């Protein structure tokens, strides 16, 4: 949908001749400044995620330890926590942006890789491949790709009853139901495989529930290319996605190929989800909640929506991870459980808003 400017900068706007589609300067400036604020929030969340733990480190000490590691105990603690923070950063950005992508591609306000079974598919794929081919093959993001794609396709098929998508496709609520059904089956598969081989899966028990804890620092390096490629592709698709929101015919009239955009969007979303799930297991509701909040102040323009999601997704995941470390002492609450608490109400809100037809 074309963003017609709300009153932000219109009051004293000296350029009445500007085309209606153009956004007044004031709003653009505001949104750009907002990006800086989001970035600052991200830095703060990252700092907290390093500072808070079984042994607290003051934020100032975190900074010193990062810029000038002096081999002290605090510096060691900080160094040991950095991979987890980086992981949260990558996972949050990947999940939030993939949610925004899915919502834009399918014009489904309930689009979320967790709700639509993609997370479960990626996780099942990793678990099965780990059991069959060993951790060397199974613990990479590549292993998540086939399951993620397959689950996405099956959910679409079940949601549309095997009918051709021409009839308007499947409704959002129906897709969520299909996602729940497929996730239930995949969850059983994950449990069955991992319970059958406890030695292999002992270390990954927390991962199966969605967690940043206890991951090998090397995972960051494995996941980074996937998330980076997915993010770049997603940002490049911002304009085509805006056009797609007008409907396929209008998009075609604007010189866009909707099919190509969808395929590229699906590739980007798959890369992001595969990376996120390989790193942290299936974490739900980030992809739903973050774009919904962001859209509240950016509107539906993907050129703003996607960067904001990339910055605020990690804020949510890192904050959830910190909360999970604090509330369940001496145990630790997996990050997926915290995001479910925070994110599930957004599902209720989205359904209640009434725009979501079954």
């Amino acid at each position, binding site marked *: 949908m074309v963003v017609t400017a709300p009153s932000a900068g219109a009051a004293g706007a000296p350029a009445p001749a500007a085309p209606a589609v153009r956004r007044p300067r004031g709003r653009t400036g505001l949104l750009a400044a907002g990006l800086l604020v989001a970035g600052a929030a991200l830095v703060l969340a990252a700092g907290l995620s390093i500072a808070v733990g079984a042994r607290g480190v003051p934020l100032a000490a975190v900074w010193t330890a990062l810029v000038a590691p002096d081999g002290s105990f605090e510096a060691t603690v900080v160094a040991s926590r950095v991979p987890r923070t980086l992981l949260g950063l990558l996972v949050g950005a990947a999940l939030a942006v993939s949610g925004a992508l899915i919502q834009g591609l399918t014009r489904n306000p309930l689009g979320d890789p967790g709700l639509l079974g993609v997370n479960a598919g990626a996780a099942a794929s990793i678990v099965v491949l780990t059991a069959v081919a060993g951790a060397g093959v199974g613990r990479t993001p590549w292993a998540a790709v086939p399951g993620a794609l397959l689950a996405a396709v099956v959910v679409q098929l079940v949601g549309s009853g095997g009918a051709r998508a021409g009839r308007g496709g499947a409704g959002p*609520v129906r897709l969520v139901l299909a996602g729940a059904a497929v996730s239930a089956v995949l969850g*059983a598969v994950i449990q069955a495989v991992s*319970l059958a081989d406890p030695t292999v899966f002992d270390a990954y028990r927390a991962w199966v*529930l969605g967690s940043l804890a206890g991951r090998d620092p090397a995972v960051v390096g494995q996941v980074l290319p996937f998330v980076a490629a997915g993010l770049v592709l997603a940002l490049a698709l911002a304009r085509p996605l805006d056009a797609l929101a007008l409907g396929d015919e209008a998009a075609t009239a604007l010189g866009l190929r909707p099919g190509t955009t969808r395929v590229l969007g699906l590739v980007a979303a798959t890369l992001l989800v595969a990376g996120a799930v390989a790193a942290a297991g299936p974490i739900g509701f980030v992809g739903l909640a973050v774009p919904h909040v962001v859209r509240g102040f950016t509107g539906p323009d993907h050129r703003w929506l996607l960067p904001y999601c990339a910055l605020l997704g990690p804020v949510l995941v890192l904050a959830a991870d910190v909360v999970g470390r604090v509330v369940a002492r001496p145990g630790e609450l997996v990050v997926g459980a*915290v995001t479910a608490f925070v994110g599930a109400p957004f599902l*209720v809100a989205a359904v209640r808003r009434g725009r979501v037809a*079954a």
Partner: protein
Amino acid sequence: MSALATRPAPADGPVRRPGHATRRRSVAVGVGALLVATAAGLAALTLGRLGLALPEVAQVLGGGGTRIQRFVVLSDRLPRVAVGALAGLALGVAGALLQSVTRNPLGSPDVIGLGSGAAAGAAAAGLVWPGAVPVPVGALIGAGIAITAVFLGSGRGFASPFRMVVVGIAVGAMALAFVETALARATREDALEVAAWIYGSLAARGWDDVLLVGAAVVLLLPAALALSRPLGLVEMGDESATALGVPPAHVRTAGVVLAVLLTAAAVAVCGPVAFVALTAPQVARRLTRAAGPGLAAAGCTGAALLVVADQVAQRAVPGTPYPVGVVTGALGGAYLAYLLVREWRRASA
């Protein structure tokens, strides 16, 4: 979007009692399901690490047998079978009640987060604040909170099953997150234990569990059966029910309350076993081909489903006993997908 329609009322007058043929079918289905449950139960008593022949089992049940045989059969296998059968019965009846109230197969306790809510309550009572309330009471409170949240959250009460289900998915996710919180606080590391709380399991059940769920069934089943006929009338429309002197709102409330109680009792003893409450009434309805809620047949089918699923879970992979919820989750999820596809086909036909 039209709701998944339950079988429409027969055209020739809703007042008529079901024909002899249908009633006979219902009885046959109930008896058949109980026979299946019994067969699976006997298999459960004989199979296992200590293999027993049927005559030996009969001997033990008659008061004989060696001490080991008596222990294995009477303290381990028999309560497990009994809990499975009774909890399955409770879940089947609860599912049939709620599906009848919402007039929709998706309005099942397990789809709208009631089972997860009960599990969260049980986890709170058992792990987070041990001793505050007994675990079954905790399960009941959890189930009550979940159904209230779904009712209020959907904004339209039970009138829009689809909305209710999506709100139920949200409530279920939060309840599951709470269970995980409880497990994290309790720092339970044993995977099977975790899986039992999250997926539902019949492992290590004792006679006190049998007593609990048995008492719930004995107390609540007659009430549910008494509600069967009014529910059948309400299913045919509020107006015709009112015309026949049945207050629809009261009947619905009673149905929901009974469903919550039965679900809480079942979840308190075996965890949130997925999808038994969804599938049992649907399977029973297809077999009996009867209109109306069909509570008795649904209950018997639920008992058979849970006992058989537990046997499959225990024996499918030798040496690796799975929690029963893994099997019902896989089967029930597939069944839910089938329901969605079927309904979509019907809608587009």
